[in-house]
């Protein structure tokens, strides 16, 4: 039955057009905005990309991963090693591939763990990689940090925007695919999912690797902005918590939830840091607690249509 699919496309086409227009508008920003705005927007887009890639896996499955900083750091070190010999897009792909490979290996071992055990392991991964890199750098390279080739803030901006655009498309397609459905089923009940023929380990592994690709790519881009990096900067656990908090704040049920969360968070952080530098963390924490208490489905949850009602619009009976 092609009919409901078509109606779905008609319904989706309006938000689709709005998102496309918004991305296109943002693309013109470097033409007239200040250098500072471009740098600030690059950060916001980076957070949006990280938060969205976090939500790709953790949103539907409910597996909270704190490994974002690990994959982000892998991307950073990719640029640190190859930044002087490769163009930025190639660095992004390389960072993404390295991250995916590590995610696949780690996931194959740890995705058998459920709930909080998985979360603890992923958090441990950040520390593990940090100390491993620190050890190899001091032992073999005789150094603590590295300088990274710079590509200019406008290049960074466009690479980030391209990454976010590709990621939005990937996340959109994933949600509609069978793999996306399988991920939701795993989140609803992993046992039940396995017993209706879903290869839960394979599906989780695929999504975990896919989401870490974008994290690595984002790290590869950001590294070029920082000029100097060391393991402490590259594997900063804040980069695990922020995307998760942004995704929760924005809401993971909707595709744009994590993006909305990242924009609101980044703007809020900017305002609070400049106005209340000493109280910033306290206010931030209070807002986060209030958000979890009063908006369990996040910012986008407030404008969500009720799912039961929506399903009745779709005439599933005729074929």
């Amino acid at each position, binding site marked *: 039955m092609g009919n409901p699919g078509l109606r779905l496309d008609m319904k989706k086409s309006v938000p689709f057009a709005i998102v496309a227009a918004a991305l296109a508008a943002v693309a013109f920003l470097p033409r007239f905005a200040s250098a500072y705005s471009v740098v600030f927007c690059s950060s916001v887009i980076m957070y949006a990309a990280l938060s969205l890639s976090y939500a790709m896996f953790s949103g539907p499955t409910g597996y909270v991963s704190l490994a974002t900083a690990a994959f982000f750091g892998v991307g950073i070190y990719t640029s640190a090693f190859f930044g002087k010999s490769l163009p930025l897009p190639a660095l992004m792909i390389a960072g993404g591939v390295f991250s995916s490979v590590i995610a696949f290996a780690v996931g194959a071992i740890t995705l058998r763990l459920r709930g909080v055990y998985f979360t603890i392991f992923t958090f441990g991964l950040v520390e593990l990689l940090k100390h491993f890199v620190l050890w190899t750098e001091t032992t073999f390279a005789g150094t603590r940090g590295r300088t990274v080739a710079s590509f200019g803030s406008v290049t960074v901006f466009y690479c980030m925007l391209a990454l976010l655009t590709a990621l939005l498309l990937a996340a959109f397609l994933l949600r509609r695919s069978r793999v996306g459905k399988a991920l*939701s089923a795993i989140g609803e*009940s992993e046992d039940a999912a396995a017993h*209706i023929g879903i290869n839960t380990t394979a599906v989780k592994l695929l999504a975990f690797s896919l989401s870490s690709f974008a994290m690595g790519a984002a790290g590869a881009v950001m590294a070029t902005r920082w000029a100097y990096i060391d393991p402490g900067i590259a594997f900063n656990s804040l980069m695990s918590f922020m995307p998760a908090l942004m995704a929760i704040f924005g809401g993971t049920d909707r595709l744009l939830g994590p993006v909305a969360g990242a924009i609101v968070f980044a703007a809020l952080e900017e305002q609070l840091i400049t106005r209340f530098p000493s109280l910033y963390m306290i206010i931030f924490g209070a807002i986060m607690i209030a958000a979890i208490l009063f908006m369990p489905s996040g910012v986008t949850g407030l404008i969500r249509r009720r799912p039961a009602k929506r399903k*009745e619009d779709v005439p599933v009976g005729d074929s």
Partner: protein
Amino acid sequence: MGILEGRALSKRFGGRLAVDDVDFDLEDGEILGLIGPNGAGKTTLFNLISGAITPDSGAIAFEGKSVGGLAPHRLCRLGIARTFQKAKNFPGLSVYDNVLTSAQFGKKGRSDAAAREMTERTIEFVGLGPFLGKSVTDLPLAGQKRLEVARALATAPRVLLLDEVMAGLNPSEVGGAMELIAMINESGVAVIMIEHVMKAIMGVCGRVMVLHHGQKLAEGAPEDISRNPAVIEVYLGGRRA
């Protein structure tokens, strides 16, 4: 040769043998009742057959091929489907999407159109047609149980394991469930059902197996089982010497 065979199956949890050296056979097209007091090992036996847990020892063969130790999704695709004692429907999905998920993943290489057709057919079959677009939480208990059965059926099983689908149902709903099980069986699916509702066991099962403390206590026709002194003692807590 039966469609499903278990030989010398054992599973230990800590110091307790939950399933202790159990043999069973399921003939193609039959309904086998599985009864026994709480903690007898009935659900553990289902978990072993469906791959949720692996046996410590023993062998399971499906259609003559050894399937012991296979993952649940592999067994499901081969044709062994199950329901859970406490229904594990996906509460975030509609009735239709619950069954569709089973239809899409339950068999390899089923097209989307075929899966949708299977979904509609299965929902009609179990009598949930009027609830097609409804949310799972809108269903009464009997409906939840039927949905659980529909999710298993949409994977097109050869063997269906039903774990207490009648628990908590009123007498007329039990009657409806018995009719449904008979219909499933007539469509060519062999069934093993765990049940405490004796009327249902006696009404639909061709054969009954009794488990007690993980061991097979008795096996036979329903009327023989209901007269078996050992079974009566276990169930009624009769006098012990």
